[in-house]
């Protein structure tokens, strides 16, 4: 067997898994998730910026599309807390959270080997939720590169706009802007579909192959989300100024939860 046939066999095997997985999926729901990915990607970086593309709202909406809003909360809530410190300020934009969240929720509902529950405080579901969150984080980081690439192409289109400085055709600006909007929507749709394919076809089935130690480690991961949110707020606003307020909130939270 030569190297080419080995690579070919591996490629077929790689494509076969997700293809089989996808064949069993309800296509109208997948289509709706992809459309949601396009819309919320537009909202996240291009038009409106209403924050409906943030992980928690996006997760809830994706859960609603799949008929299981609780799965949306299970993925969206911890991921929201994990990424609370990511500021979408111009160049410092990090992570492509929209497609990762929607694909995370979609795969959890449509292809998960077991129900994914809110990254709560016990039970089997926590390990699977942790594993899913790892995949969502990886996809979000990978997506950031694609967003930066897209922004690089904006520069080329912006240069095209210089022609208007000579011929005075201002409608060119609207055309270029529309091109950017369409690219963002297309990017959102393609990335959501690809992320869904990867999570449903590879990532979630892998969970059952993990050794016990790894599943126990995955079960610990969702517990990181709330402390990360506190650390992010303290860091963003400066610990020196914020520790009194955070400590007051902590005491209030402890008392309220203890009584409740």
């Amino acid at each position, binding site marked *: 067997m030569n190297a080419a046939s080995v690579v070919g066999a591996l490629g077929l095997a790689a494509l076969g898994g997700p293809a089989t997985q996808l064949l069993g999926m309800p296509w109208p729901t997948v289509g709706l998730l992809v459309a949601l990915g396009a819309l919320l990607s537009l909202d996240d970086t291009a038009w*409106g*910026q*209403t*924050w*409906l593309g943030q992980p*928690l*709202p996006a997760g*809830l909406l994706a859960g609603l599309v799949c008929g299981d809003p609780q799965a949306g909360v299970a993925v969206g809530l911890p991921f*929201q807390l*994990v*990424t*609370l*410190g*990511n*500021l979408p*300020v*111009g160049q410092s934009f*990090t992570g492509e959270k929209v497609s990762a969240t929607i694909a995370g929720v979609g795969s959890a509902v449509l292809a998960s080997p077991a129900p994914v529950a809110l990254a709560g*405080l*016990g039970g089997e579901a*926590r390990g699977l939720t942790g594993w899913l*969150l*790892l995949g969502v*984080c*990886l996809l979000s980081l990978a997506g950031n590169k694609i967003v930066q690439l897209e*922004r690089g192409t*904006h520069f080329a289109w*912006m240069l095209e*706009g210089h022609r*208007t*400085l*000579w011929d*005075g055709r*201002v409608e060119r600006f*609207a055309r*270029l*802007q529309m091109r950017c909007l369409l690219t963002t929507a297309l990017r959102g749709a393609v990335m959501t579909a690809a992320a869904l394919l990867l999570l449903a076809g590879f990532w979630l089935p892998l969970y059952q192959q993990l050794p016990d130690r790894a599943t126990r480690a995955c079960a610990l*991961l969702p*517990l*990181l989300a*709330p*402390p*990360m*949110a*506190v*650390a992010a*707020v*303290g*860091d*963003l*606003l400066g610990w020196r100024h*914020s520790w009194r*307020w*955070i400590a007051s909130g*902590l*005491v*209030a939270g*402890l*008392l*309220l939860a203890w009584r409740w």
Partner: protein
Amino acid sequence: MPAADTSASDSRPGRLSAWLMAEIWAWSLALQASWNPQRMQNLGLMAALAPWVRHRRLPLPNVRRVCRRHYEYFNTNPYLAGFVVGGLLRLEEENERAGGRLNRQVAVFRGSVARALASLGDQLIWLGLQPALLLAACGLAWLGRPWLGLALVGAFALGQLWLRWRGLAVGYRLGLDIVDMLSKPGWHRAIRGCQRASMLLAGTLAGAYLVALAKSPAAGGAAVAWSLGAGAACGYLLHRRLPGELVFLLGLPLALILASL
């Protein structure tokens, strides 16, 4: 028929027709769509100004001048951009009436007001309102009321659309006087309020979470210790400006070590 009144010879603004304003507003919502690392929102700004330029039916040399003036580096907070865009429309009209004598003033206005609003917007929106609102939504979801959390985000969505419309109208009405509006202490009070709400909510969420963790039979004290210890390590990594996703991934080796014990 031009949509804005050009007959006045004083500095009072004309009136933007509702349709023209809606068109400018819709394009101003896409200010970030063509964000590029070199000139940031310049294409977005020109797309927002383009309906006004078209409606004014300016002669070609004037169109070129307006485009050259504004197709430079431009960056501001998208939620407060309406104030700059409205102010620029007003100043461009005044400049036109003054026969182009205010060219420099218009350019300085754009740069300085955009910078001031970028700074205010970063403090108020990104560092104040966003964490506060999202933490409140997370708290509601944690309490089993995710739809209330979604409603909160929906209310913000509608509110910011209104703010951007209002910003356009106010900016156009005030023109250069936007500077007075920016110096009002209310901005800083709002920033402080939002940031304190974020801190309080973060603390409350953490407190409630720790109690729930300690009470849970499947978690218990060891989980509380892990959560606190790993949280401190994550805090250090976040301080190094690593994105949250990467910090979460870096938690895996730590969790593997703990799971092996």
